[in-house]
C-alpha cells in the first residue's frame, strides 16, 4: 500500500497532525495499535483527571464548548473528548493496526503492520512518551512477599492489601497516588526525589492560566537555557481535583504521609533513603518562587495586578529534622510498593538508527534530522514547554507538518 505520510498513533498528537496534513492536502494514513486515545484508556488509575483545565484542551479546529471551562476532565471525559475530535475530523484512520517495524526504503520509509505494509515518504511518530513504566533496578531486591506495581498497573486503594505502602516518586502521579492511598487508611511513606512544586491556584487563577497567559507554556525549545534539563524535568506536583487542593509535600505531610529521601538501595529487606531530602525540597521551593516571581513581574508589566488577588508565597516545604534513612520493610508493615518513577517511550519497532544510548530519539524540535522525512511528537519540551500537553499538539503539528511539506517538495524536485 502507498501513501505520502504515515502517522503512528491516534492520540491528540496523531490526530492534530492528521488535521494539519489534511489542511496542507498531504495524503496520509493514521495507524493506531488499539482504539483512538489508546494510552488514555489503558494504564491509568481510576481517579485520574487531567492536570490542565477544560478550556486548555485545544486541538486544531476544536476547543472547549461546555459550560465548565475551569474543571478538570476525568479519563472517561478525556477519552470522549478525543473520540469526538476523531469523529469530527474523520481522519484516514486504521485502528487495531499495531506497527511491527519502520525502516528506511527507497528514499522513504516502509511501515510494516500486522495488517499489511505501507510505503511512504514521511513518517510521524505520535506514540507518546508514556509507553513503558520505568522501574529502577533495585526493585529486584524487594522481598517477594511485598506487592509491587507501577502507576500504569495501579487502579485504586481498595485493590491494595491492607497495610503500609511506599510510593516511590513525588511528581504528579506519585503525589496523587500517595494522597488517595493514605486517605484509604493505608499509611504511606513517600520517597521523594527531584520534584517540581507548583500551587494549583495562584492569585485566584489556575496555575495553567498563568502558564498560558505569560507565554511560559509557549517558550520554545531553541530559546530555553538548558534544554536537556528542561526535557528531563518531571511534571508539576499537581492534581486536577474539583476542590482545587494542592498536593504538595506540605499537604501530604498534613495528612500524615511520611516523607523520606529518594529510595537509594534495598539491602536485606531494609530500604535505604538518601539524605538529600532537605536539599531537594529547598531546590523545589526556590524554583517555585522563581516561577511565581516571573508571574508577578508579568502581571505588573501587563497591568493585570489589580484584577487578581495579591501575591503570596507558599510556606516552605516542611522537612523533619532527621528524616528516616532506613526502613525495615517487614517490621514497618510495608505490604505494597508503588513505582511512580516515570515512563519512557517504546521504540522497539523503530528500525531506523536514530536512538541515543539511553533509547531516546535524537531530534531537533521533533525533526529527526538524521532520517529526513521522520518526525516525532508529544515528547516533553519537544518544541515548546507545552509540547507534552494536549494543548501543545496543535502548534507542534502545524510546525512539523510545514517542515514535512517542504521536505516532500524538496524530495520531489530531487533536492
Amino acid at each position, binding site marked *: 500500500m502507498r501513501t505520502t505520510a504515515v502517522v503512528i498513533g491516534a492520540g491528540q498528537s496523531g490526530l492534530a497532525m492528521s488535521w494539519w496534513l489534511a489542511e496542507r492536502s498531504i495524503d496520509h494514513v493514521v495507524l493506531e495499535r488499539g482504539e483512538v486515545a489508546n494510552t488514555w484508556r489503558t494504564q491509568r488509575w481510576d481517579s485520574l483527571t487531567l492536570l490542565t483545565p477544560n478550556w486548555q484542551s485545544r486541538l486544531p479546529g476544536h476547543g472547549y464548548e461546555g459550560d465548565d471551562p475551569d474543571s478538570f476532565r476525568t479519563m472517561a471525559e478525556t477519552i470522549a473528548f478525543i473520540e469526538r475530535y476523531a469523529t469530527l475530523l474523520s481522519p484516514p484512520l486504521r485502528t487495531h493496526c499495531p506497527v511491527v517495524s519502520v525502516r528506511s526504503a527507497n528514499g522513504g520509509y516502509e511501515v510494516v503492520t500486522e495488517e499489511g505494509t505501507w510505503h511512504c515518504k514521511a513518517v510521524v511518530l505520535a506514540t507518546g512518551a508514556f509507553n513503558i513504566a520505568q522501574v529502577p533496578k533495585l526493585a529486584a531486591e524487594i522481598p517477594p512477599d511485598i506487592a509491587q506495581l507501577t502507576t500504569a498497573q495501579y487502579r485504586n486503594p481498595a485493590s491494595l492489601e491492607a497495610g503500609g505502602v511506599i510510593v516511590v516518586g513525588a511528581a504528579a502521579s506519585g503525589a496523587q497516588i500517595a494522597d488517595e492511598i493514605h486517605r484509604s487508611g493505608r499509611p504511606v511513606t513517600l520517597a521523594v526525589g527531584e520534584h517540581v512544586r507548583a500551587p494549583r491556584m495562584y492569585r485566584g487563577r489556575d496555575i495553567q492560566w498563568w502558564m498560558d497567559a505569560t507565554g511560559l507554556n509557549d517558550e520554545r525549545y531553541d530559546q530555553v537555557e538548558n534544554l536537556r534539563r528542561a526535557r528531563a524535568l518531571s511534571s508539576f506536583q499537581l492534581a486536577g481535583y474539583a476542590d482545587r487542593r494542592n498536593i504538595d509535600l506540605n499537604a501530604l505531610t498534613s495528612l500524615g504521609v511520611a516523607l523520606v529521601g529518594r529510595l537509594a*538501595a534495598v539491602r536485606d529487606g531494609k530500604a535505604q533513603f*538518601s539524605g*538529600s531530602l532537605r536539599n531537594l525540597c*529547598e*531546590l523545589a521551593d*526556590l524554583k517555585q*518562587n*522563581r516561577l511565581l516571581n516571573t508571574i508577578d513581574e508579568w502581571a505588573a508589566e501587563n497591568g493585570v495586578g489589580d484584577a487578581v488577588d495579591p501575591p503570596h508565597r507558599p510556606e516552605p516545604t516542611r522537612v523533619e529534622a*532527621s528524616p528516616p534513612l532506613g526502613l525495615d520493610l517487614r517490621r514497618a508493615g510495608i505490604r505494597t510498593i508503588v513505582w511512580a518513577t516515570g515512563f519512557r517511550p517504546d521504540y522497539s519497532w523503530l528500525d531506523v538508527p536514530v536512538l541515543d*544510548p539511553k533509547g531516546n530519539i535524537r531530534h531537533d524540535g521533533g525533526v529527526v534530522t538524521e532520517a529526513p522525512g521522520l518526525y516525532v511528537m508529544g515528547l516533553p519540551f519537544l518544541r515548546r514547554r507545552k509540547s507534552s500537553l494536549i494543548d501543545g499538539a496543535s502548534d507542534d503539528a502545524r510546525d512539523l507538518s510545514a517542515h514535512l511539506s517542504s521536505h516532500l517538495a524538496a524530495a520531489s524536485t530531487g533536492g
Partner: protein
Amino acid sequence: MATTQTDKPVDNGVNVEALFGAQEALAKTPEAARFKWRSTVEWINGTHSRSTIEGFYGLGAEQKHKKAFTFDADHPEVFAAQDAAATPVEIVLAGLASCLTAGVAAVAQARKIQLRSVSATLEAGMDVRGILGMDEDIRNGFDGIKVTYKIDADASPADIKAIVAQSQKRSAVYDIIANPTNVTVEVA
C-alpha cells in the same frame, strides 16, 4: 536570574568554558568519563597513619597530580591517642566542605555571579557508643551533618541559596555521604 550588572566580567577563578567543553567532549566518548580515584595509606604508630595521593585514572589514561599530597590522621588525646593530626571523620568533613565550596564557585561562575567571600562551618554529631560497640542501635557514623555557609556575592539571597542548593545537587562528596555506596575491603 537576577544579577547585579557590573562592567567587570565575572571571575571566580573557574574556567566554566572548559567544563562545558568537557561536557560536550564526554557526551561523545563516555568511556573517557570513567575515572578511578586512588589513595594509599601507611600505618605509623597507634592511631596515627599517613595517606598519600598522587595518581588517578581518567580520560582513558593514567594521570598524576603535580606532586604527591600527604594527609596524616590521628585521634585526639581524649581518645587516649597522640593527636598528631586531624581525626579521619574530620577529614571527611573537610572533603565535604571543599567539594561543596568548589561547587559554589563553579555554579556562581556559570550563573555569572561574582563571589566576594565564601566561608562555611561544618558540624557533625556522633554518639561514640557506636564505635565503642556499646549499643548495636547506635551507628558508628555521623547522626547528621550541619553545614552553614556565609557568602558575600553580587546576588539576591534567593539566588545565593539557589547556588548552594545546586552545588549540593552536583557534589560528589555530598552524594557519597548522603547515599549508600558499596565498600569492599580485602586483604591482599
